[in-house]
Each structure stands twice: as structure tokens, then as C-alpha cells.
């Protein structure tokens, strides 16, 4: 075992190498834009240079003169598309702002023309020669900009159902022995996956194939069909690999349907490769947020009152909202809780999911505030969390299915060397560097959604698993193959998994960290159907069939035990008894509590996520604790983070290697979110300024010399058949607060606005 492939503890799978590892590092993995097209034309986008106003006139003469130009599409000649509703309103779209529909401009970088040419270079050249005359109006950029409107999220966004409250916050806060009131701010951020926001659309008669990196092939298929006004069965979305999603490919963006319609019009397959900077405005982003936290506590550290007020910026047209108070009001035991989330509307593109949508900004506020309270109480911040650890959801009183928060704190503290920390701020240094230690909690709801799967077993053990899941880099192929191999008792190398194709049985969006639990539960169930058929063949009597049901039926127990049953299945004997060459089963799995329309919605590309705090009698979250060391140069004030240590518990760990990789990436991103990443907005014109990877900073290797991931053994029999909690979005929550807490420890300076840059440090 190595650091990269940790030895499995209890209730963990084997750390088998990633199925697609060699293909990816040698460039053989085919991403959407690598798919060969027959005689394609190339599209290049023209995007608006203003954020608000209208287009008066296009001058296309120069552009049309570029050799190889086939067509230039603007709102004046664009194919008409049907509208799509926002995903949260029963639609598929991440924004309802539809480009090329009219002369109106709703945000910076809106698609205003599509140039189609014989080559990418010709299309780009012509796009650069398109001249646009605008009538610009003064846009509202962000918080505090003139012209924004603010209103409570509840009531305007079906995504945001409730401002959690319990007890009497005002009274308890008034009477509290120790009080804290503090405001926090997080910036606009963009996902910037390596794979650009490309799409390729090819028609074969009335049938459309879309090659596009998507986290939800069924959503995209149904959404594009809706916009084109065609039968969804005529649309197929294919993407065996996705070059990073992070939420940016979860909902349909406006680019796809328009490219499909233009491809039909010019009667050629079209390949669109937008630029990196266009990716900042033609998709979604994490909105900037503001928070006010009020904490009241007794002198011995017991929380008596907690209020979290959050505000998020959205577009004029769409009330997108992450509303993380559903998590922050439930993390700690507190009898009097109040919360309120508001949406501020500005002339911006609609924000969207970005890993981990609610928790990253909202826990920054809460976990910073906890640290501030610990300082006020002169208490170790780990102990403050221990005192307020909860076994029940404080809002609804439901028990946690499992909760290893303090075990994570203890494991991580030990590995980090927290006991070496001198409690006073400004008390540790090493040469030119001031040293600070900080910590914070992380948590993420355990979510699941209905999923289908088809499994085919050959007599010699070869197995084919088909499921329209998504390999967004998490290791989905690998853990699904492991699940099938284990459940059927066949060697892993005999299992082939097919995903990323909407012609396969439907799987949910690869979002909300639900994929592993959902797809593996479906695969487990279908493998059991196969086992049942085989067992019935070799155990024909009624009593034995009942026995078979009992031992191989879907069970909440972890797959290792339930999968094996009480006797080995002799596959060849069973095939002979059945007299067939192949056994194939299809099945549809849904989690407990899934709504009545779940399976219909699944086929229609609409997600029905359940879990988290919305379970009927329980509440399910994964937990972790993160510890960081920051170093601040006393001369230059540069902030560096030499050590990140995280301990996490997330039910069954399907594959410690791929899980570690997810959590490690999360820790790095969490650090980045605190110290580097911010999309700068020019407030005069509501435009993004640093829209490229040279200026939108993400960490390089030199920034992360030490990252340690510890996975705790945890068993949870209440969540799903696999027993797994989603962990993809667990790693990057809380890190931002841990960093600021460490900066306080190093400098005595509390920084409440991200990202922290050297000019924010005053020594």
C-alpha cells in the first residue's frame, strides 16, 4: 500500500487503480471534442462587450469576406428555439437567458453571433471581424451597485424552500453570556474545468447526436429536444469522459440547442470550441455571497443562539440560490436558531452549481465565526466543537444516521500535531515566516437519486454494465466495476462498464455527490436480479427459491456481506441449467423517500435528489475535519500553506485510492478558494476582468507541498444499499475557514473576506 493507494480499513473496498488511468495519462481517452465527425464545419462564438442594453447593428461585411465562412448567425436570422425553464422550475436550463433571440443584452459575454466556417481558424478570424454597434445602458454589477434589487429567497426560488428556524433566537441571543456578531464575504468564482465548453452536433436524418462534456446526459438530451421541439428519443448525448465538471456541466447551457439548430440549417456536423474567456460567461459560476453570523454562548462554550443571514447575487431573470443555511443551522446543537437568505439581482449571467454549492460559502462564515467565538471564550476551537457536537438535527430533532465529526477532529488533530500549537496568536514563527495553525469542520449532505442499470453476464464471467452515468474524473468507471465484480463474484478485469451515453439506462446528474451511492445501488440491485435468476435455476424448489431471495435480495447491509450470500454461486452450472449463453437484467432503483414520479422524471432527465435533511425520520451527512498550517512572510506578507490535513468519514469507502484523490483535490481547492480564486468584476460595466487561467489563479504544485488525507472507518446502514455517503464535495468545504483561522493564529488579524491576499495582511 502507498499514500496514493491507502490500505482499506473496515468497510472499505480495495484501492484498485483507476480503470481509465493509463488512457488518460497517455492521451488515449476520447473526450467529446475528440469524437470524429464526418466533414464538420466549425463554429466560433461572438459574445457581447456590454452587460446591458441592445444591439443596434451588425456590420458583417469584413467577416463575410474571410475565406471559408459558411454562415453568420445573429438574432436577425437565427433559427427559432423553444424556451426552456430553469432546472429548478421543472426545466433543464442553467439560465433562461436565451441568446440570439432578440437584440437585448442581459449580461456581459452573452452569445450574440455564431460564425460557421470551413475551419476553426477561419471561423475565429471572421468572428474577430464582426463589428457590433450597441446602445449600452448602465448595468448593476454586484452587491452595493446602484440598481440592484434584494428580496428574500423564499418564495421566489423553488430551489430554496425554507429559512430554518427553531426556538426563540432573539431572546436567547439577548440573554447570552458571550456574543459574537461578524460579517463575511466570498467572491465570484468560476469552475474552469480543463475541458473547454465545447459541443459538437451531428444530424443523421431526424436524429441528432451531441458530443459534449456533460454531467447529465439525460438532462441535456431532454433539454435540447425540448428547445428544438423534437422527440427526446431522437437525441443522443455521448461523452465517455468529461474533462472536469465541478457543477459547470450539470445543467444545459444555451450553446447546445443553438449549435444543433445551426447544424441542421447548414446541413453539416458542427464543432464548437469556445475560448477560455467565453467559458466565463456562456456557462455558470459561483455567485459572490455575504453573510452575517450571530452567535450566543454560555461562558462554558455551549451555543444558546445562532443566526445566519446570507445574501447571494443572481441574474435579473433567474432566482438561482444555493441557500446554505439548511446546513449551517443544523451542524451544531443549538436550541435557538434563526436564518434568512436573500437574493440580490444584478445584470449578470445566472450563477449555478459549483462544488460544493451551499457549503463552501456558508460554512466559511459559520466555521470562521466558531473560531472567533473560541477566541472570545479562550477555548481550544476543537473543544468548542466537541461541546456543541450534535446527535440530532437541531431544527427538526431527527437523529443523524451516523456522525463521526469529532472522531475526524481527533484523528486529524493527531496527524497534524495540533497539540504542538501554542494557543496564543502571533506566538509561532520560523525565520522569515510567521506560523499559524487553524482548523474547521466540513460536512456534506448524503444525497441519492433514482437510477437504472443494465447488466449482462456471460457464462465465462465476462460482465457488461450499462448505465448513463458520468466519468467526471472521480473514478466512476472503477467503482461501478468493483461493485459489479463483488456482487456477481466475477474477477474485476472481466467487468466492462459503459457510461456517458444517453442511449444507456438513465442515471442521475453527476452532482450533489450522489453518483456513487445512486449508480452503485442500481448496479447492485440489477446484479442481484441476475444472481436470483441463476440461483433459481440451480435451486428449483420453492423453499430454495425463497432462500435465494433472502440471501441475495437487495439489502441495506454493505455489499461485501450481502453480496456473497451464504454460499458461492456456481455460474457455469447455473448457465447450463438455464440453457442460455447470456443472462441480462435491467432494473430501476430508487432511494427511500423518493417521490412518486421518480422513475418517470428519471427518464425525462429530471433529478429527484433525496437525502440530507429531507429524509423522513433521519438526517444524513458526511463529516470531516480539516487542519492547516499557514506561513506568512514577515517581510513580503506572502501567504503560503505548506500543510493541509483532512480526516473524513463518509460511510463505505468504495475505493480508498479514488476517494483519497477526490478528497485531496478538495483540500487543494479549498485552500485555493481561500487564497487564490476570485473572478474580478469591473463594477463600471459589470464585466469579468481576469477571465483566463493566467489571471484567475489556481494552485500550482509548489503551492501544495503537503496534503494528507485520512479516511475513517464508518458504517451506516440507514442511507442506501451501498452504504456510501457522497464525498466528492466533502473535501473543499471548511478549508477556507481553516485557512483564515490559521491566519488569525499567525498574525492576530481576523480576515472575513475572501480571497485573502498579501495586501490584506498588516503586520
Amino acid at each position, binding site marked *: 500500500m502507498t499514500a496514493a493507494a491507502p490500505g482499506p480499513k473496515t468497510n472499505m473496498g480495495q484501492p484498485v487503480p483507476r480503470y481509465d488511468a493509463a488512457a488518460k495519462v497517455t492521451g488515449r481517452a476520447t473526450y467529446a471534442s475528440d469524437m470524429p465527425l464526418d466533414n464538420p464545419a466549425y463554429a466560433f462564438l461572438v459574445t457581447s*462587450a456590454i452587460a446591458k442594453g441592445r444591439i443596434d447593428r451588425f456590420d458583417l461585411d469584413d467577416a463575410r469576406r474571410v475565406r471559408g465562412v459558411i454562415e453568420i448567425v445573429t438574432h436577425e436570422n437565427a433559427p427559432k428555439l423553444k424556451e426552456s425553464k430553469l432546472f429548478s422550475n421543472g426545466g433543464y436550463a442553467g439560465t433562461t437567458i436565451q441568446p440570439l433571440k432578440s437584440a437585448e443584452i442581459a449580461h456581459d459575454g452573452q452569445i450574440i453571433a455564431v460564425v460557421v466556417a470551413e475551419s476553426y481558424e477561419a471561423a*475565429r478570424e471572421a468572428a*474577430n471581424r464582426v463589428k457590433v454597434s450597441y446602445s449600452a445602458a448602465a448595468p448593476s454589477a454586484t452587491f452595493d451597485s446602484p440598481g440592484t434589487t434584494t428580496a428574500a429567497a423564499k418564495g421566489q426560488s423553488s430551489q430554496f424552500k425554507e429559512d430554518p428556524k427553531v426556538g426563540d433566537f432573539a431572546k436567547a441571543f439577548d440573554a447570552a453570556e458571550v456574543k459574537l456578531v461578524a460579517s463575511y464575504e466570498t467572491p465570484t468564482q468560476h469552475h474552469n474545468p480543463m475541458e473547454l465548453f465545447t459541443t459538437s452536433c451531428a444530424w443523421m436524418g431526424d436524429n441528432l447526436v451531441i458530443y459534449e462534456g456533460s454531467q447529465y446526459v439525460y438532462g441535456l438530451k431532454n433539454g435540447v429536444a425540448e428547445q428544438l421541439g423534437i422527440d427526446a428519443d431522437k437525441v443522443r448525448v455521448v461523452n465517455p469522459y468529461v474533462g472536469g465538471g465541478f457543477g459547470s456541466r450539470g445543467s444545459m447551457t444555451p450553446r447546445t440547442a443553438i449549435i444543433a439548430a445551426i447544424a441542421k440549417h447548414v446541413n453539416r456536423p458542427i464543432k464548437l470550441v469556445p*475560448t477560455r*474567456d467565453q467559458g466565463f460567461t456562456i456557462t455558470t459560476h459561483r455567485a459572490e455571497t455575504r453573510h452575517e453570523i450571530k452567535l450566543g454562548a454560555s461562558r462554558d462554550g455551549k451555543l444558546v443562539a445562532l443566526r445566519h443571514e446570507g445574501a447571494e447575487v443572481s441574474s435579473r431573470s433567474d432566482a438561482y440560490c444555493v441557500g446554505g443555511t439548511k446546513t449551517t443551522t443544523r451542524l451544531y446543537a443549538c436550541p435557538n436558531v434563526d436564518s434568512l437568505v436573500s437574493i440580490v439581482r444584478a445584470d449578470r449571467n445566472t450563477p449555478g452549481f459549483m462544488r460544493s454549492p451551499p457549503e463552501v460559502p456558508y460554512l466559511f462564515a459559520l466555521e470562521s465565526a466558531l473560531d472567533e467565538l473560541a477566541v472570545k471564550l479562550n477555548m481550544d476551537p476543537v473543544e468548542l466543537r466537541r461541546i456543541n457536537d450534535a446527535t440530532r438535527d437541531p431544527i427538526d430533532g431527527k437523529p443523524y444516521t451516523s456522525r463521526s465529526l469529532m472522531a475526524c477532529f481527533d484523528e486529524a488533530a493527531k496527524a497534524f500535531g495540533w497539540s504542538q500549537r501554542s494557543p496564543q496568536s502571533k506566538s509561532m514563527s520560523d525565520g522569515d515566516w510567521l506560523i499559524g495553525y487553524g482548523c474547521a469542520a466540513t460536512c456534506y449532505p448524503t444525497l441519492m437519486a433514482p437510477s437504472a442499470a443494465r447488466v449482462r453476464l456471460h457464462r465465462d464471467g465476462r460482465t457488461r454494465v450499462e448505465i448513463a452515468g458520468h466519468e467526471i474524473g472521480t473514478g466512476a468507471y472503477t467503482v461501478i466495476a468493483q461493485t459489479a465484480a463483488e456482487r456477481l463474484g466475477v474477477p474485476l478485469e472481466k467487468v466492462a462498464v459503459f457510461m456517458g451515453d444517453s442511449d444507456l439506462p438513465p442515471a442521475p446528474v453527476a452532482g450533489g455527490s450522489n453518483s456513487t451511492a445512486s449508480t452503485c445501488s442500481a448496479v447492485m440491485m440489477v446484479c442481484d436480479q441476475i444472481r436470483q435468476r441463476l440461483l433459481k435455476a440451480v435451486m428449483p424448489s420453492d423453499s430454495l427459491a425463497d432462500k435465494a431471495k433472502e440471501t441475495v435480495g437487495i439489502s441495506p447491509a454493505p455489499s461485501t456481506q450481502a453480496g456473497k450470500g451464504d454460499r458461492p454461486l456456481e455460474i457455469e452450472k447455473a448457465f447450463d441449467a438455464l440453457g442460455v449463453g447470456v443472462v441480462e437484467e435491467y432494473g430501476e432503483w430508487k432511494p427511500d423517500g423518493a417521490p412518486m414520479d421518480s422513475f418517470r422524471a428519471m427518464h425525462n432527465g429530471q433529478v429527484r435528489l433525496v437525502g440530507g435533511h429531507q429524509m423522513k425520520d433521519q438526517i444524513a451527512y458526511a463529516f470531516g475535519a480539516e487542519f492547516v498550517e499557514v506561513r506568512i512572510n514577515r*517581510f*513580503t*506578507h*506572502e501567504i*503560503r500553506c505548506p500543510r493541509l490535513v483532512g480526516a473524513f468519514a463518509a460511510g463505505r469507502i468504495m475505493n480508498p485510492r479514488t476517494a483519497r484523490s477526490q478528497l485531496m483535490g478538495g483540500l487543494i481547492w479549498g485552500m485555493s478558494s481561500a*487564497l*487564490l480564486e476570485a473572478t*474580478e*468584476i*469591473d463594477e*463600471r460595466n459589470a464585466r469579468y*476582468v*481576469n477571465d483566463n487561467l*493566467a*489571471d484567475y*489563479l489556481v*494552485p*500550482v*504544485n*509548489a*503551492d501544495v507541498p503537503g496534503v494528507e488525507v485520512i479516511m475513517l472507518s464508518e458504517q451506516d446502514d440507514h442511507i442506501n444499499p451501498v452504504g456510501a455517503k457522497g464525498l466528492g464535495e466533502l473535501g473543499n468545504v471548511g478549508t477556507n475557514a481553516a485557512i483564515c483561522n490559521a491566519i488569525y493564529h499567525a498574525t492576530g488579524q481576523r480576515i472575513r473576506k475572501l480571497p485573502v*491576499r*498579501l*495586501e490584506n495582511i498588516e503586520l
Partner: protein
Amino acid sequence: MAVQALGAAAAANESLTKAAAQPLAGGTTLIDLMKLDVMRPTAIVDINPLARAWSAIAPGGDGLRLGALARMSDVAANTEIQRSYPVIADSLKLAASAQLRNMATLGGNVMQRTRCNYFRDVSYENCNKRNPGSGCAAMDGVNRMHAVLGTSDQCIATYPGDFAQALIALDAMVEITGKAGTRSMPFAQLHKAPGTTPDIETALQPGELISAFSIQGRWPRSVYLKTRDRQSYEFALSSAAIALDVQDGTIRDARVALGGVATVPWRAREAEALLKGQRFDDGLAQRVGEAAFADARGRRHNSFKIALGKRVVARALQQAAMMEI
């Protein structure tokens, strides 16, 4: 050496005399700017065939000669340069990424253009550098990375490089080859502060190429200190190239150049004057830092660079003074 190369250069010069023709060496800036539609050359002249004659890395007894087509990584890895000119080796090593340093040449490096976002985004009409007389979007825009020294009412774009600070600190000469032959000038005269003509960035005439750089003497007591948002692959928020000649505890000669804070490679001569003839102490280092930024002028987001720059100069001086030669 340059004379031998002129045969090859002649063909190049013919194209280069056309205003819109551009030489291509490593291509690490030109290709980017062409993709962004900022630079629209009608012809590109590949000058890499000159590399055989123009990529000398020649430290000698009385000085150093560097060919303009030497690659950044090769120069940074040269042990004699690391020993006798650490400020040069470090300025190269701390620039860009390993991949870029393998491609980029010294001549191209000093000619790299500003990273001003408004310059690099052609959807902004108002950029005096791109469209003379159109105004400056950065002046009241997002200008955290912009210059506080050498600015004008027309332009505050930062000169982004690192190596140039080492050259200007060491009084390098730049050798320029054109149709009329070869001429030399102080490197300090190569770049033009924006003034009222930010579109004119250097003293190079159409058709001229930088062929080499030369430096007199050795500067073993020299450092390049670079401050930036991340640990690698990032432009300087503030940097200092320092070279000292210390004899028996007295500073006989001192050089202070600044990066990341000025519109051109910047030599802080008034600050240097404070050092000459003095014995080093921390108070002196701080006074030098103050003097180096005496004329600095900040804007909305970049004023921090003034205080930062002073500390960077002071710290770099301390590091140079403490070096064991």
C-alpha cells in the same frame, strides 16, 4: 558572431521592415496575442534559424555575453551564471513555468508585452496602447496588477518581465542588429515609458532585432527577490533586483532595480545613491526602500504595491548584504 548571422538576418529584415511583420522566436507571447486578436501581423518571420549564431551563453573573465536566442532555462541552469550573476539566474528561474522557460528566448523575454487585461481584451475600445488616443480602461478599472512607477495619464500598464530588471541593474548593453548593421545601446534605453505615446514601447526600429546582451564585470553579490500571489508560475506583484559591491564592509557600488511595479524595467538610481560609500544596516535598507518609491503613485487597487515594494527592496538588500561570497 552576429556578423556571421547577418546573412540569415538579411532575409528576415526584408520582411521585418514591413510594419506588420513580426519575428517569432519562442512564440510564447506572440502566439497568445494573435489568438486574442491583439496582434495581427500580416507576416511572421521565424528567426530560430539564427539560433546557432545568436544563442551564446558566454560568461568570461571580464563580463558576460548572452545571445538573444538563448533559452531562458539554459541560461538559468548555467553554473557560472549562477555563481557570478545570481540575480540573472534567479530572475530567469523564478519566471513563468518550466515549459515556458524551455521555449522562451532572452530577446523575446525582454520584449514581452504587458499583461494588462484591458490591453489583452480587444472588446475594450479604450486602450491607448492598442488604439492610440482611445483612453485607458485600466486607470479606473480593476488595476491591482498595474504600475505605480513610470505611469502617465495615458497608461498604467505594468512591464511584466523579471529578467529585464537584472539587466538594467547590471548596466547591461543591448546589441541590436538591423539592415544597417549592428548597434549597441544601454539596456536602460531600450524600453520607453508610456508618456503620451504608450503604443511606442521600445527604441527598436522596424526591421531591427535584439541579437545579444552584454554585461561588464562580475556580480556575485546579487539577488532577485520576487513577491507574488502563488509560489510559482506567476507574475511579480513586486520584485527587486539588487547587486552590491562591498569591500571591507563599505558599499562601493549598489544597484537597485524594480519589477512588477513600473511601466518599464525600472532602475531606482536615487535609492542607489543612498547606499554608496555606506556601511550596511537595516535602517539604511529601509531608507533605500522609501527612496525607491518616493515618486510612486497608486490607484484604487494597486496602492498596496508602494508599501510592499519598499519592504521588498529592504529585504532584498538584506539578503544581498548577508550573502556569503
